[in-house]
Each structure stands twice: as C-alpha cells, then as structure tokens.
C-alpha cells in the first residue's frame, strides 16, 4: 500500500480535528507549521482556546480572507493572521518566557521522526548540504507542558516515522507524549508506543507493520 493513497485513514483535517478534540477549554496552545496549523479550525463547540505564536502574539485568530490584513501581523510560519479580542502583543524574549517558563499548556508540532522514548526529530535531516534551520522548535519541546505531534504515519516513500531511535538529529529527547497520524493515535509512555485509537477502516496489524518499533495494542 502506498501511504499517499489515503483512501482509508484520516485526512489532514481529520488528524487536526482529532488533535483539537484533546485540547481542553481554556488551554494556551502553540501550533507548529503545517498540519498543526489546521487544529485551530477545529476547536469543539463551547471551548475557548488561546493560540500563542512565538513571534509575539497571544490570541492569534485565523488568517484574514483574501490575504488582506497587515503584513506585520503574521504567525511563526510568516503567514498573515488576525488577533482575537483579548489578544496581546509582546517581544520575542517575553514570548519565550511563555514557552521556556512552562506557561504553554500544549504544543502540537510536525515531525520527521518520533522515537518510542518520545524523542523528536523535526528540524534537520542532518544532510551536509541542507540548510540547518531550527526556529523555535527546540524551545517549544523543552518548555511547553505537553508536546503532541501530528504527522503522516510514514514518509512519502513509505518509511515509518515512528521508530525505535531517531536517525535524524534530535529536536528534543523524551518530549513527545502523543502522536496523531493518518492511521492512529499513539501515546508514548514508559513502555513505548501505546495504541490509543485507530482511524476508521484501519486495523492494528496495519499500523503495527508501518511502525518501526513495538506498538502495544489497545487494552482488551
């Protein structure tokens, strides 16, 4: 099976929606670039979640329509956004007080690899000709209270992203608590990968075969 062929499993929006479901009312949340950005669209009815973007805004709202807006009101991915009522602006050092100081409840990031120990690699392939660029990822994984990951279960060429040990340079060691993929929700605990939920139409064996480390099944 090609993983790009997502006839079964969760779409990018499904994954984001599933992650959004786990974010409680009142949480302060930082969303990484890519699929994590979609989480903001799926806050369940009746909850109020405050989004932080590390370039100096708490209370980030959706991107303005038709790419209007202020070119100096952007998110960490340099996309134009809006500010919701109750927002505040601050400088970079203060923004990372929020991150490093443990004030962000949940951070949802993308990943290149996640190990069964919760190690995360999401900033560099380590290839000598790549341009290394880390941004705020290392600060987020070191500082936010709960780190979750949204990622396709496998790379475009079918390599598992959930592994025994990351081969890419780490963003942080033992930091990821939960992973949302197109196939499943997987927790990471003292015993490694623990299946929490399967996407519709996906069975345990399929996920297990695409996971390059032991995956514990749902408890009976």
């Amino acid at each position: 099976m090609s993983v790009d062929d997502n006839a079964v499993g969760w779409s990018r929006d499904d994954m984001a929606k599933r992650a959004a479901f786990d974010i409680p009312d009142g949480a302060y949340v930082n969303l990484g670039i890519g699929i994590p950005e979609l989480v903001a669209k799926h806050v369940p009815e009746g909850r109020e979640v405050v989004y932080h973007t590390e370039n100096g805004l708490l209370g980030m709202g959706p991107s303005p329509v038709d790419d209007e807006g202020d070119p100096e009101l952007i998110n960490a991915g340099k996309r134009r956004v809006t500010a919701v009522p109750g927002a505040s602006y601050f400088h970079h050092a203060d923004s990372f007080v929020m991150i490093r100081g443990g004030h962000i409840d949940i951070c949802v990031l993308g990943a290149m690899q996640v190990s069964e120990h919760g190690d995360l690699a999401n900033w560099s392939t380590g290839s000598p000709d790549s341009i290394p660029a880390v941004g705020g990822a290392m600060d987020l994984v070191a500082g936010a209270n709960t780190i979750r990951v949204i990622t396709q279960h496998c790379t475009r060429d079918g390599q598992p992203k959930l592994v025994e040990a990351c081969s890419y340079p780490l963003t942080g060691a033992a930091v990821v608590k939960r992973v949302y993929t197109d196939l499943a929700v997987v927790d990471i605990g003292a015993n490694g990968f623990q299946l929490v939920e399967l996407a519709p139409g996906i069975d345990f064996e399929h996920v297990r075969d695409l996971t390059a480390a032991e995956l514990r099944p749902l408890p009976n």
Partner: protein
Amino acid sequence: MIDKELPTVAEAVADIFDGATVMIGGFGEAGSPIELIHALIDQGASGLTVVNNNAGSGEVGLAALLKSGGVSKLICSYPRTAGSRVFPDLYRSGRIELELVPQGTLSERIRAGGAGIPAFFTPTAVGTPLQDGKEIRTFDGRDYVMEHGLTADFALVKCSRADRHGNLVYNKTARNFGPVMATAAATTIVQASEIVDIGALDPEVVVTPGIFVSRVVGVAKPALESELVAREVSYP
C-alpha cells in the same frame, strides 16, 4: 469560555496553603495588593515564605501579614521602613528568617523563575557580604555571582484594569514587581481596580498577558497603605 474572575478576595486566596511561597507585588505602597493581603490574613495560612521588595509599614497590608505570625521567612531587598516596628521586632527576636537580596537580583531571579531559567550570572554583590556562599565565576575578566531563579506557589498582584482572560495593565510605578511575579507563580491572583470587557484592552498596551494570570477579582476602590497608616489603622 475562559473566565478567571472570582467574586471575592476571600475566594481568590482560599487555597493558599500552610508553608506556601507567596510573592506579593508592590514597592512600598505602590502596587501593594492590600485587600488580597488582608484576605490572606483572614484565611489564616501559616508558615509562609513571602517575597516582596519591602517589609510593609504601620500595621496594615504586608506589615499586618507579618504581625499575624503567618510568615516564617521573608525574601526581600529593603525591609526597613521609617516608623514601622513590625518587621524589626520579629527580626530581632528571631521569629522571622530574612533572605536579603539586592533589588535587581531579586527582580531578575523572579523573572528567571518565570522564564524557565534555573540560574544566571550577575555582577551585583561581587566583593560584598551578599556574595557569601555563592558561586563566583569570571567572564571576560570580570567576576560574577551565580544566582538562582525564584518561583512561588502563589503571587498576589494589584493592577488597574483587567479582563476575564487575565490581561492586565497597571498604574504608573505600581507596575514594579507585578509583571514578573505573575510569570513566576504557579497560581497568580490579581486584584484589579476595574474589570473591563474582553477586547477593551488594546493588544499593544497589555503589560501582563492573560497566560500568566490564574484569577482576577475586582476591588473597585483599593485602600491606600499610607492613608491607613496615617489613620493608625491596625488590621484586622
């Protein structure tokens, strides 16, 4: 919905426990959250470690909290106030422990605590008795003292205006320690002279973003320590 507003100061401080570390904002009377402090006295928690720049004046506010006997340790830069007897009496009779910290080191230790920085180096106090027992390290030929970040279980902060998210703005030099203490406490409790609608505070001028604030209680006309002291009020 996020609504951090509580109706009374008593409810706001109800869970401050015996032995807690409590940061209390204010420099002299400016920014002193006197109603929250009085509520804490009424609540009766004991064995507290209090962090404040001063030691209060007269027998109200911080001085009254000290007099109540609930404070076993004070972390402070300047515990001397003209005319105040409460702290000197406790100190001279050995009933309170004092950790004297230079004012800039105190504010930076609190900021570091809130910023997830366990330790930093400062030139302040090098060559003085306040470096005793601390690690000294040389950078570029100059000596520095290593100081540790300071965190607390609770912070009591006074501001001028707040919204239900806990966004705060302050009045003039009453700002002082409030913004850093709000970052460094597990639970930050704020008394605001006015609680405004969400969106009423311009995002450009918010000083303390709501992420640092746990509870807000409106205290419309806060008492002034200097007026109470002039009237020789003694709390409770």
